């Protein structure tokens, strides 16, 4: 019998509409009612959470763990460590590994590896199409049985609308959520940065906003046609937000997520050809950033995630065209979002921010997580929304260092991460 009592914290549990300063009791790895305190045989361990927020363990539903196949960038073990250091107790890992996570055996490997070495909950997403090639369906039913929580071709996007339609219908049958990385290959071409003033000035091939919007539109139509929820990953443009807002108003089963770099930076950042600003989808213009902030504020965009994409130094230290897309994000996303959304731009309060990291993704993926309900697994994040800190990449847990945020001063940070009642990380 093990017990921990977290005292004096502000318990924010949006799924249960709780926001109160109260103690939280954990017994044998589960949330217990406070009334159980008196029946405990021994004194529980005490954690002082004064001035801290006690939230359900945060969920990041867009993470690249790189295993199997690319362990030199990140492993399940190091990625989980990075997640814990970022305040996350559950992460959903993307299928663009090697081999691609499109067979039950690969899913099985990921799950058993995670069980052995990962200190946070690792939930695999499976591929929509075989080998992410966009030509034939992956064995979605078998993948569902093997334990995936969603399907996505992330990194790629099915261009054949008919194939995507069949995938969504099939997913509906096996009750698996569909996530989509919205990119029209023809519009985008070999674009590496947002099409706009900066791409024109620098002579870099541009990725027009329409390249994302065309697929967002496609997904809205398919969500309606198939009557199944489709979630648009990393939304970045003003018109995407407008399309989502209008569709959701009509009750279409569509949602969108935002990554911190798309509100922290604009495409002006690429002017020195620093590959730490090269992502897919790319950084956009200020008007797009403003629209994303509005979308977060009015609930059009309901989920926050990192798209944590580790790459080795030697891969990123090349000419801009040749560099792979993406940056790490697990250890900076919470700080960036609290700083930008809650403090700087005041678009949401901390309660809603926590909801976008807990109840919203849990609802989307139908997870038993994201709450502090009695009986729930004791995944808890303690965070200090006013803690000022400076990002120091070289101290990070992640196996890679590709981030543009080194040296940034942020306000807001997780201070302790608890999974199944056990502390898996604390700020020293």
């Amino acid at each position, binding site marked *: 019998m093990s017990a921990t009592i977290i005292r004096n914290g502000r318990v924010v549990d949006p799924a249960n509409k709780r926001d109160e300063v109260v103690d939280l009791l954990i017994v044998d790895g589960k949330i217990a009612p406070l009334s159980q305190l008196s029946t405990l045989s021994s004194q529980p361990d005490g954690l002082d959470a004064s001035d801290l927020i006690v939230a359900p363990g945060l969920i990041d539903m867009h993470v690249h763990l790189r295993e199997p196949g690319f362990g030199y960038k990140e492993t399940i073990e190091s990625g989980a460590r990075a997640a814990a250091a970022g305040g996350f107790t559950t992460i959903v890992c993307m299928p663009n590994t090697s081999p691609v996570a499109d067979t039950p055996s690969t899913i099985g490997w990921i799950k058993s590896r995670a069980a052995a070495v990962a200190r946070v909950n690792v939930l695999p997403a499976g591929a929509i199409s075989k080998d992410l090639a966009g030509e034939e369906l992956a064995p979605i039913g078998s993948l569902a049985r093997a334990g995936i929580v969603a399907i996505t071709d992330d990194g790629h996007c099915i261009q054949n609308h008919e194939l995507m339609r069949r995938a969504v219908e099939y997913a509906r049958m096996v009750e698996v959520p569909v996530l989509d990385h919205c990119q029209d290959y023809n519009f985008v071409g070999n674009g590496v940065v947002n099409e706009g003033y900066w791409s024109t000035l620098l002579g870099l091939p541009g990725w027009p906003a329409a390249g994302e919007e065309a697929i967002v539109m496609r997904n809205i139509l398919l969500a309606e046609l198939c009557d199944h929820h489709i979630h648009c990953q990393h939304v970045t443009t003003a018109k995407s937000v407008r399309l989502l807002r209008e569709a959701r108003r009509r009750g279409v089963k569509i949602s969108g997520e935002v990554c911190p770099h798309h509100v922290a930076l604009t495409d002006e950042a690429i002017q020195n050809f620093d590959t730490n600003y090269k992502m897919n989808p790319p950084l956009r213009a200020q008007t797009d950033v403003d629209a994303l902030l509005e979308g977060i504020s009015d609930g059009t965009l309901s989920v926050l995630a990192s798209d944590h994409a580790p790459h080795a130094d030697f891969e990123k230290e090349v*000419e801009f065209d040749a560099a792979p897309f993406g940056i790490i994000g697990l250890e900076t996303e919470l700080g960036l979002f609290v700083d930008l959304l809650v403090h700087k731009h005041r678009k949401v309060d901390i309660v809603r921010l926590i909801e976008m990291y807990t109840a919203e993704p849990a609802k989307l993926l139908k997870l038993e997580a994201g709450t502090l309900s009695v009986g729930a697994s004791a995944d808890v994040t303690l965070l200090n929304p006013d803690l000022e800190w400076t990002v120091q990449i070289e101290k990070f847990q992640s196996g890679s260092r590709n981030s543009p945020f080194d040296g940034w001063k942020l306000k807001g940070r997780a201070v302790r991460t608890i999974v199944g009642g056990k502390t898996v990380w604390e700020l020293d």
Partner: protein
Amino acid sequence: MRIVESTTTALSGDAQAAVRWNRKDLLGLRELSVDEINFILETADAFKQVGTREIKKVPALRGKTLVNFFVEPSTRTRTSFELAAFRLSADVINISATASSLTKGETLKDTARNLEALHADILVLRHSSAGAPQFLANCLKASVINAGDGAHEHPTQALLDLYTIREKRGKIAGLHVAIIGDILFSRVARSNIFGLVKLGARVTLVGPSTLVPREFEKLGVKISHKIDNVLPSADVVNLLRVQHERQRKEYFPGTGEYTRFFGLTKERAKLLKPDCLIMHPGPINRGVEIDSDVADGLQSVILDQVTNGLAVRMAVLYLCGGIATT
């Protein structure tokens, strides 16, 4: 004639140049000041004279090693840099992508570092990736000269274009310069736009709307898709090479249509003012962007551009190479 007073020099004739130029690299015209551009052109005046001597050689870069690293192939530009280096008494090595270790998977950075370990002093780089010269300049002590990076910049081409205009018309400010062709994918166009606008010229870009998007107006230029409206008021016409390769098939229907709508035909050339200069960075597609006779005509300064290119490149190598080793 202004006589300069100098109290500190052991050798007469010296003047401090460090204050007018202190860059080891030439990556583009976007970041140069008006004074820096003018200084390069003035220095090029001095080097142009060397080309008229019996022995076309000065020892200014003697003992220095210049590497022409042309990952994207080019004969004309490379030859021009090679000759410029020879005239400055530098030793020259030419490396092309296919011959280099890049094909064996060595990264650009490692290849360049190897060259530096061999004490290369100046690296002239042409690469298909925008930003590649900047990337190398940041990690090497050697001078990096951008000989063209993707669609981004081709600074020595724009400098020789500016030099030619200045030589023939006496000034840049106030002139109306029309740049005609595939602007979107052209590094020559971008560098020229930056240089001309900085020096006070009025620039009009002409071409199909797919290759001359409105976004360019934010750079301080005008846009027109009707060449006949622009030619009569132009003081300089700079024609860009138009190619109908695979990547461009979506942008315009073919060279026949291009010539009909945007080519500088004999008929169109009659619309030009008599002292209007006709320029082209080469190589020319005779009959496509420019009529063959027009290319050889009296208003064409295309060959002057080539001669001036040598002087401008000597100036650039002298200035950047000098700073790198000072």
